[in-house]
């Protein structure tokens, strides 16, 4: 089993619903967020190129945050989801320094926090909150090992890219382009 997410950059309008849904579902403290929208503008007027990306933890296959954690608080569970055990986290911030996507932050209570792919929902067979709330249905979640899953279907006949592939982390957020 390998959970992953595909984000359709052609459909995303940058409304930030995914950000709010996540904050509500996961009780994210005020002023913090586990997912965010990047607007990328490239080129020269009038030939401008615009891309919206809903970004979050990439749940990397080769996760540097898990490798550098001195206590083992950062770990990978079945399905490839990267999690932090709060009672084992000492707040040394090594994982924050090691993440090329800046997907982690220090929770005001001291431990390190990040996107969990809403594991509490996924375990019940539901989608992460951001996926279900998206008004343009641009987020696709599921098991890559299952060829009929939403994410596998989305990746089947579209071109995609991942972020900073040269960081060698084998990220599991696929951006449809």
């Amino acid at each position, binding site marked *: 089993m390998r959970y992953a997410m595909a984000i359709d950059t052609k459909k995303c309008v*940058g409304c*930030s619903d995914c*950000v709010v849904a996540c904050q509500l579902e996961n009780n994210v403290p005020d*002023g*913090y*967020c586990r*997912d*965010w*929208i*990047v*607007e*990328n*503008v*490239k*080129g*020269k007027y009038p030939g401008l190129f615009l891309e*919206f990306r809903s970004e979050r933890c990439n749940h990397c296959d080769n996760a*540097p945050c898990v*490798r*550098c*954690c*001195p*206590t*083992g*608080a950062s770990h990978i569970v079945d399905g490839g989801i990267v999690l932090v055990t709060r*009672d*084992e*986290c*000492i*707040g*040394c*911030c*090594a994982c*924050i*320094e*090691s*993440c*090329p996507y*800046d997907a*982690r*932050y*220090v929770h005001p*209570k*001291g*431990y*390190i926090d990040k996107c969990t792919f809403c594991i509490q929902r996924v375990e019940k067979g539901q989608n992460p909150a951001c996926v279900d709330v998206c008004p343009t249905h641009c987020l696709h979640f599921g098991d890559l090992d299952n060829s009929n899953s939403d994410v596998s279907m989305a990746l089947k006949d579209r071109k995609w890219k991942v*972020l*900073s592939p*040269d*960081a*060698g982390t084998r990220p599991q957020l696929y951006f449809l382009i």
Partner: protein
Amino acid sequence: MDEELIVSGRHIPNIDPYLHVWHWQIPLYLFLGGLAAGILFFAGYFVVTGKQEKMKATVKWAPIIAPFVLVIGLTALFWDLKHKLYFWQLYTTVRFESPMSWGAWTLMIITPLSVLWVASYLKEIIPTWDWKVVWFNRFESWLIKIRVPMAWVMMILAVILGIYTGILLSAFNARPLWNTSILGPLFLVSGFSTGLAATIWISTDPAERRILSRIDLVFIVVELFLIVHLFMGFLAGTETAVESAKLFLGGSFTMSFWVFVVILGLIFPGVLEAMELRGLHVPKWIPAALILFGGLMFRFIIVEAGQISRFLN
């Protein structure tokens, strides 16, 4: 143009607009760790080579400050932890993939060892000292007996500690400025050089100082070479590496790095030490203080700049 903006209004403390989760505590600790490693390495070295009578300050006096330096460093590290009450989790596991984990274990061993080292010399440092407890006296004579093996262990641990302060940073491939294997040897050499500088400052014997200055000069030259190699490596590297090197080559850290670290912290004290070896009188504290200052600045600048350097999307 190629502009990336977070339009959902992200402004997380210490993460946005650029990473700054490690403040002064980490570079201070890296400096103190390297300093203690340098002091303890040479204390052990001159015992193993049988020169303890010629090198009194290096073997007996300078190590007195090592436990204090280590404890201040450890306090800084603890201060930096954001989930402090759980710090003991560090010592529930050994994770070789994480330099922070084996570094924490190294500190756990070398700190008490440095205390034992000083304890074994206490009667020579304070002739009137009396442990008053028989068992302590017995333990002390045992420590004196095993001084050579203790010196070997201390030397090995000092090298590990010195290298670890650099590898700690180079293990983060997300920060291109740190992600170079030269950082380990560079921090080791720099740490040993600061250790020698502190010992030179403490020593009252000109003959001993000459020997230490000679060694220190070699370390300074090696350090300068490693710095040149560091930038050669970056400039021959990927765009991410070139961009991170630019922070020091025209970017915001150019002045502080080349003036405070390279010129004032390495070249100038190196020239002073060389002149002193040729017979010119230079107050011993001037090159020593400059090297210590340069070492501290070096770590502050690398930690700050490294957090700014990043992968380009």
